[in-house]
């Protein structure tokens, strides 16, 4: 057993944030040191948790020692361990980049950053639906503050849209939770999975409605089709380290969709099994297509990267929507890659924009960047990775996804949309590259050279792509193991609630 380790990813950022508030008068150096130390500690703890999850056992931590389903539990399986580690790695490099000076543009950057990490880690670890709502709100209110970091009219406007949309989303989330509780009398995810499978016919319709309400809410966080219009504005106006951290925010929505619709409304949910199937694949593909049009039409690099986030979400949801072990594993591989690379791209876009003076990241003729060779090489690698050209990790991710769709009825759609979208993304990014680095006027460069810490952060995030390709075997073995865990909800239920009566195991898991 893991003892109390499971709560550390939630407590450590919270304690660090409180410490930073208390020592706010002691200067920026103290704040940065606490922040970076806590961040390194968080990466280490996440690695320990991932290591613990490798065995395939479910680690359960009952808060206050109230046993599930009466108390709130934290549950660690491979998926949540993966998401926590991914968050902390991305956050480490975003923080490193911010320490180059952008954390001074407003107050309490580090405090908000750690509060956001607390919410993210909590959302990934919790095994309770209402607790998921609470952690969503924690990460959201921290993200509201972070989005406004630096100030300015653009951020105020984007922030206003973002906050209002998410408040409306929270209202829907609560209605969904209330209906589910009213019908089933529990909010523990494992217990819900048991109760949904046993639900009487008169309850089914309301449970179905509330499940779809939850999908709308998670779709809003993940930026799925009709609900993604807030994303390009918000992400492109946020300051770079914040935007990089936000690359994981859409993945919280994807994670929640995977968790709820694989566990509670998964293959063993009786009459409501595979409830998400008719929705996810088409929504994912349409989101992907519209995202690519956004990438093509963007007039500014930051906005283009924001649309690339929409593209990655669309691809992920389409992959998850195939609902097979292979597609789930491929999606998880793609999730790791796309999160780190889009995070790196946001930082890189900022590096480029800072060296182009008033032109910023707009795609029009401007001064040459101060470090043309370095930045153009980085952009080239990042573009190859995000489009999915060999030999980088993005290629393997897309290849795995395409392979998973073979023999599926939707194969023709899946293949054509993903391949055509990749082609358009390639065109758009080639055009961007030439606009940024080749079509320059002869005005003197005004930008300062990029600092060591920021270059290190961008390089490390971009390196994840070749690393994911080199260690592709290990990573894809892990994602297959994770996917296999996900398609066996009974294991999760027994891990949390203890052994179930055999009659129920038979009725629920008969086909295993």
């Amino acid at each position: 057993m893991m003892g109390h380790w499971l709560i550390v990813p939630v407590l450590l950022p919270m304690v660090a944030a409180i410490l930073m508030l208390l020592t706010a008068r002691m200067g920026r150096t103290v704040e940065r040191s606490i922040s970076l130390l806590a961040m390194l500690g968080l990466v280490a703890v996440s690695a320990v948790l991932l290591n613990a999850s490798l065995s395939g056992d479910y680690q359960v931590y009952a808060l206050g020692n109230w046993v599930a389903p009466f108390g709130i539990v934290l549950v660690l399986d491979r998926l949540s361990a993966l998401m926590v580690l991914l968050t902390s790695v991305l956050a480490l490099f975003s923080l490193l980049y911010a320490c180059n000076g952008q954390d001074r543009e407003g107050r309490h950057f580090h405090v908000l950053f750690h509060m956001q990490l607390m919410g993210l880690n909590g959302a990934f670890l919790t095994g309770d639906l209402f607790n998921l709502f609470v952690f969503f709100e924690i990460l959201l209110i921290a993200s509201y503050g972070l989005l406004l970091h630096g100030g300015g009219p653009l951020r105020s406007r984007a922030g206003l849209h973002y906050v209002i949309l998410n408040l409306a989303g929270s209202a829907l989330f609560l209605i969904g939770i209330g209906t589910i509780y009213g019908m089933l009398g529990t909010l523990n995810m494992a217990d819900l999975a048991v109760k949904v499978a046993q639900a009487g016919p008169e309850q089914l319709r309301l449970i179905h409605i509330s499940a779809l309400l939850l999908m709308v809410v998670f779709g809003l966080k993940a930026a799925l089709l009709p609900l993604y219009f807030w994303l390009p504005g918000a992400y492109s106006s946020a300051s770079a380290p914040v935007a990089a951290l936000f690359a994981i925010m859409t993945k919280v929505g994807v994670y929640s969709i995977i968790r709820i619709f694989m566990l509670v409304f998964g293959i063993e949910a009786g009459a409501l099994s595979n409830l998400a199937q008719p929705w996810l694949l088409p929504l994912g593909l349409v989101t992907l297509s519209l995202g690519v049009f956004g990438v093509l039409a963007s007039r500014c690099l930051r906005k283009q990267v924001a649309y690339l986030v929409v593209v990655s979400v669309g691809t992920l949801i389409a992959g998850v929507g195939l609902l097979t072990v292979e597609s789930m594993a491929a999606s998880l591989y793609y999730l790791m890659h796309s999160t780190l690379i889009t995070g790196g791209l946001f930082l890189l876009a900022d590096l480029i924009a800072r060296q182009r003076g008033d032109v910023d990241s707009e795609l029009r003729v401007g001064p040459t960047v101060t470090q043309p060779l370095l930045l153009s090489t980085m952009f080239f690698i990042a573009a190859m990775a995000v489009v999915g050209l060999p030999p980088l990790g993005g290629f393997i991710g897309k290849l795995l996804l395409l392979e998973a769709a073979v023999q599926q009825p939707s194969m023709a759609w899946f293949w054509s949309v993903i391949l055509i979208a990749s082609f358009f993304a390639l065109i758009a990014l080639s055009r961007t590259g030439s606009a940024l680095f080749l079509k320059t006027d002869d005005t003197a460069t005004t930008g300062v050279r990029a600092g060591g810490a920021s270059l290190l952060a961008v390089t490390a995030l971009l390196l994840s792509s070749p690393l994911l390709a080199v260690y592709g075997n290990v990573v894809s073995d892990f994602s297959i193991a994770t996917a296999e865990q996900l398609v066996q909800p009974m294991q999760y239920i027994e891990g949390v609630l203890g052994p179930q009566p055999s009659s129920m195991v038979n009725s629920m898991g008969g086909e295993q």
Partner: protein
Amino acid sequence: MEILISTAIGFLVACGIYLMLRARTMDVVIGLTLLSYAVNLFLFASGRLTNNAAALISSDAAAYADPLPQALVLTAIVIGFGMTAFLVVLAIRAFGDLGNDHVDGEAGK
């Protein structure tokens, strides 16, 4: 009592949505507040509406009220309160930055 509660929730939701669609920041703030009141009532009702039922264990109670929705409502109220306060501050700041109170920052649309 069911009819009273459900009418109240429906009325609050209708007013909330109408105000949210007005696209002026203060109207949206009030609309979201009404919506959150409706949601809180709804959550409260999800534990069933009971009269004179004990919330805690007593020796002569025939029926118990479900205490969990009350705890959920309490959490939701606190969160909603904090969010509304933040939104009010943000709305004032956006008014200062953008010069008008339209949510898109452009008056006359």
